[in-house]
Each structure stands twice: as structure tokens, then as C-alpha cells.
């Protein structure tokens, strides 16, 4: 049992180790990668993914899933783009993004937690609806030609090559991680995902927790949409399609179990960095970007299979130990009766 517990605690460390190994291998093949600026550029480019992965991590921790985040991101990116066309301020965009996130999150939460619809199916439906809204809001056109300094924000460097976005996201990730691991309320997400009935019995409202998880997920997806718009400078109507799958993959890489109750925020953030680094690393290794998906797929499958086998083994060993100790106590009992 102790072994299992320690395994849980170091889960994000193992994905960090994986990231370092990945960078190390690239460095061995092409030493020019191991410079401060190229490694940092990997981090800087991971901002959108990190936000999405952190958002969906809340939901996955509670044992549900949300495939609508890609379209939520597309919607807020489009709205941000429309505001930017008129020269509006980023604060205004963020307010809209958060509002959109809260509304979509509440709808998802209501469907999943209150009506008990399987989460994949319900969010699949909202995904289609929100994607349709993107089309309506954008009037079927690509949103581009942003006015003002909005697009420059993405490349704004604070100090030592660290962009403002990355710094903000990094601080956010640390805060959320600490909130989830150190505070009582933060642990509710894991508790609900691990054992909903148990959580209910100790007085945690499963409905409320799942609701909050979905709302937070929506807010994070909304904010990532603003980051997306400012980073790419244009938003077409299919922006964000498939991002939900990458975000889920990032969480899996970060050691968050899709059945819920296992993992933490740091893992999600690291997983997102791994996901977005792959295509950059390929450039340094000298392979074409065609290998991007193949390597992501192999990586994902390998990690989850190894993880599953390891978990299986530790559970099996614990079971054996338990059985062994039981038979031993039985033997001593019987021995005592005979005497």
C-alpha cells in the first residue's frame, strides 16, 4: 500500500524525468539543441496546450472527460479576434473568454453531473453546438487583420527570453498545483474521481465538485483561446479542432489516469510541454515533421501500457502479500487451537 502511495506522489516527477530524457536524447543527437534559447523556445510555444491540458485535468481527475474544449477555445479565439479587429483591450477579451468558459462549463456540468449523461457523449454534443456557434459568430469567415498591439503580446519578452505568456502560465500552474495538493477543497477533485460514493459519504458533494471542475475547464479553455488568437494572429472557423485530443494526450503523458482519482496539475503542465515539444525536437533530430504524429502515438501507447502493467503488478503484489499474511495468521490460529 505504501508502495502504491509513493508511486502516486512521484507520478509527475516521472513525467518530468521523461521530458529530461527526451531533451537529453535530442541533445546527444544534435548538441546545438542544448542551448538556453532553444530549450526555452520549447517552453514558450507550449502556452496554449498547457492551458488546455490544465483545464481538462480538473475534469479528468473527477473521472469524467470533456471533448468540447477545442471548440470552446475556437469560440473564444474568434471572439477575441473580433474584439481585436476593433482595437479592443485584452482585458475585455479575457472577460468574454471567462464568461464563455463559465457558461459552457455550466452546461457541460449540468448534463454530466445532474442528468448523469455519460460525459463523452454529452460533451460531444456540446462540441458540435459550440463549433456551430463559432461559425455563426465568425460569420463563416476567417477572423484576421487584428488592429493594435494585440498580436505583439504573444512575443513580448519579459526577461531572459521568457515570454510574458509563459511566465503567467507558469505561475498559474504552480499556484493551481499547490492549491490542489495542499488545500482541503483542492483534494475534492481527486477524491470524487477516486471513489464518488465514498466522497459522497464523507460529505463531499459530487455534483458540485464536478460542476466546478467543468466550469474551471471551460475558463481555462476560454483563456487559451485568447492566447491562441494573439499567438497566431488569425482564427479560422475550424481553429482548435483536434486540440481536445492533444490536451487529453498531454494529461495522460503527465500521469493523470483517465479513470479519475490519480494525477496532479504539474503532471498536466509537463505533459503539455512534452506534447508541444515533439515537433520542435524533430527539427533538431533532423527528421521531417511528418514523424510528429507517429512519435506522439508511440510515446502515448508505450507510456500508458507500461503504466498499466506496472500498476497491475503492484496491485497483484499487494494482493499476494495480503493473502500470504492471511494464510499465515490462519495457520498460527489453527496451530494454537491444536495446542
Amino acid at each position, binding site marked *: 500500500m505504501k508502495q502504491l502511495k509513493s508511486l502516486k506522489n512521484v507520478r509527475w516527477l516521472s513525467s518530468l524525468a521523461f521530458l529530461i530524457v527526451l531533451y537529453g536524447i535530442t541533445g546527444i543527437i544534435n548538441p546545438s539543441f542544448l542551448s538556453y534559447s532553444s530549450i526555452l523556445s520549447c517552453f514558450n510555444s507550449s502556452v496554449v496546450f498547457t492551458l488546455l491540458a490544465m483545464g481538462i485535468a480538473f475534469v479528468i481527475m473527477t473521472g469524467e*472527460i470533456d*471533448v468540447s474544449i477545442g471548440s470552446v477555445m475556437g469560440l473564444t479565439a474568434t471572439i477575441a479576434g473580433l474584439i481585436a479587429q476593433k482595437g479592443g483591450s485584452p482585458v475585455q477579451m479575457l472577460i468574454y473568454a471567462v464568461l464563455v468558459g463559465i457558461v459552457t462549463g455550466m452546461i457541460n456540468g449540468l*448534463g454530466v453531473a445532474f*442528468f*448523469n*449523461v*455519460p460525459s*463523452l*457523449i*454529452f460533451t*460531444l*454534443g*456540446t*462540441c*458540435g*453546438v*459550440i*463549433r*456551430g*456557434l463559432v*461559425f*455563426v459568430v465568425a460569420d*463563416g469567415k476567417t477572423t484576421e487583420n487584428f488592429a493594435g498591439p494585440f498580436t505583439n503580446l504573444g512575443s513580448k519578452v519579459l526577461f531572459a527570453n521568457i515570454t510574458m505568456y509563459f511566465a503567467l502560465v507558469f505561475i498559474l500552474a504552480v499556484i493551481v498545483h499547490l492549491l490542489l495538493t495542499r488545500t482541503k477543497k483542492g483534494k475534492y477533485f481527486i477524491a470524487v474521481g477516486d471513489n464518488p460514493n465514498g466522497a459522497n459519504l464523507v460529505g463531499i458533494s459530487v455534483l458540485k465538485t464536478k460542476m466546478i471542475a467543468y466550469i474551471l475547464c471551460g475558463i481555462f479553455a476560454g483563456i487559451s483561446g485568447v492566447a491562441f488568437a494573439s499567438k497566431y494572429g488569425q482564427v479560422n*472557423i475550424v481553429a482548435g*479542432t483536434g486540440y481536445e*485530443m492533444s490536451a*487529453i*494526450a498531454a494529461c*495522460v503523458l503527465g500521469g493523470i489516469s*483517465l*479513470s479519475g482519482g490519480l494525477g496532479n496539475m504539474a503532471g498536466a503542465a509537463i505533459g503539455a510541454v512534452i506534447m508541444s515539444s515533439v515537433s520542435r525536437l524533430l527539427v533538431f533530430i533532423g527528421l*521531417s515533421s*511528418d*514523424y*510528429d*504524429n*507517429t*512519435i*506522439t*502515438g*508511440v510515446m*502515448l*501507447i508505450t507510456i*500508458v*501500457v507500461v*503504466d*498499466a*502493467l506496472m500498476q*497491475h503488478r503492484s496491485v497483484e503484489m499487494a494482493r499476494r502479500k495480503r493473502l500470504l499474511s492471511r494464510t499465515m495468521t490462519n495457520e498460527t490460529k489453527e496451530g494454537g487451537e491444536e495446542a
Partner: protein
Amino acid sequence: MKTLKNLFKHWEFILLLLLAAEFLIFGTVNPTKFLRPVSIMSSITNYISICIIALFVTFVMITGGIDIQASSIVGLTSIIIGVLWSDAGLNIWVAVFIAIAASALCGALSGFFIAYCGVQPMVVTLGGSFLYSGIALLVSGLSATPAYQGISGFPSKTAEGAFVNFRFLGKGTLFGVIPTQIVIYVILIILCYWLLHKTKYGRKVFLIGVNQQAAEYSGINTRLTIMSTYILTGIGASIAGVLLTANVDSAKYNLGSSFTLSIITAVVLGGTLSTGGKGSIIGTALASIVICILRYGLPLCFGISTQNLDLPVGVMLIVVVVGREIGHNQQIQMLFKRLKAKK
């Protein structure tokens, strides 16, 4: 009255009503354009890949799994056929056979990890969707044709403009009216229906979905059965890929990459429980057709842009699943009863 009530308990009957309602609404709004058998059939052939894959994903969902890699197998099949035919110079039918075998292998690989290693189906097939679409892109690199262009010029067309050989699968018609694709679809529906509802194998699939442990204890090789459902889906996806390639006359690595959500929508709408143990082939087939007609009728009769068809389909999915949940959930029913009593 009682028989009518019993009928309503069957999900397929409700789907049939939905289909009838669609025909009624679209037919009254725009009878001249909508009620043409040729265009109705073409509305189904437009989404035939989704219809076909949904049939096979039903098997997977009944065992309690999920398959989101099928859409990437469509592209893989297409590009394998293209490269083997145009660059390796193989006979087209040999190429088709190899492509289907490769897809079955892809399904088997994912199925193996799911059934024998105990990884969640969602994760493995997510990885699989990355992996197989990646492999498809790599395979397309072997061809002399640039990946974005797509390999075209498949055999063949006669001088009179009739489609024969490989293209017959995608564009040909039987008796001059019924598209070959629909004939193949009907055959597949019958085949799947037989396999799921009339054979021992189908009963095993259902039992695994209801209770895997009970199935294991009653002597069913659950792992092999679960793996076999993923192999079936792989084969189904590759049949869809063959038909799609033959239809558009272009072998591309990213054909069908956007199908995933539509496939699952069709299966779920067809009454299959995502937790497993319940579902039917007829339901899936009817639901697929309902979606096809909706996608065909809305732009025609209400002028909705074809790019914006996700919205109505999404709304339909949400309304149906929430409605079904309210119908089944006794707590919510009690709530409604109490509200009524208060009034």
C-alpha cells in the same frame, strides 16, 4: 394501447418516428428538391463511411469500450492502396486486400493493449489515432506524388463513362439506379445484424458488456472477444476507406480524419449504451440515416450553410441523450411527479 406503449419502449421505433418526421418536415418545405430518390440516396452515400464504421463501432461500445482511432484507419487504408497501386505497381485488388489486412492488424494491436494489458480503451485508441494517422503520413512520403495532392487516376472508366473495376465500388450503380455503396452498406448491415444478434459470438459480446467478470467465469475468453471487436472495427474502417477512395478517386493520408465525433454520435443516437451491454445494429443504422437526412435536408430546405451542420447534429444528440436519461432516471421522474403534485 398497450402495444403502442411497448413500441415506444423500443428505441428503434422512436428513431423511425424521427426519420418519418424528418421526411414530413423537409418534404413539405421543399417537396420538389427534397423528395428525389436519387438525391436522397446520394445523401447517404456522402456519409457512407460514417454509416459503415458506426456499424462496427457498435460492437466495441457494447463491450463497454470505445474506438476513436477508426477515422485515422480510413486515411491509412486509402494511402496504402494508393501507394501500392501507383508506386509499387501492384494489382488494385491485391492492394485493397493488403490495405484491409493492415487495418485489421492495426485494430488487433490496439485491441491487444486494451484486452491483454488492461489499459483504458479511450487512451489506447487515442494513441492509436495519432499513431495510425502518423503512419499514413509516412506512407504517403513513399509515393512520388506530393502528400497534399493525393494519388488519383484509379481504374477505371469505360469510353461511355461507366465506372468499372475499382471505381465501380465508389461510383457505380446497380441496375442503373442504386449506388453500389448502398448495396454494400445493406449487405454489411445484414452481416453485422446476423453476427451481433443471431450468433454465439454476439451473445458473448453482450455478456461482456453487461458483466465482464461473469462472462469470464462462465468460460468465455473475454480478452480474445474484446480484441476481436477492435479487429472488426479496423476492418470496417478500412472497407469505408476503400469505398471513399473509390468514390473521390483520390488516395490521401488524411481522408476521414474528421469522422470520429460523427461516428460516435451515430452509435450513441442508435441507442447503444456507452457503458456497454446494450445496443443494436438496426438502431445504429437508423440513427446514421437520420443524421444523413438531417445533413442533407437542412441546407436544402432551410438554407443552413453546409459548413455549419455540426450545430443541429449536436443539438439533436444532446436533446436525445438528456431526454433518454430523464426517461430512465427514476430520481428525476420522482422530482417531476412531486412538482406536478404540488401544482
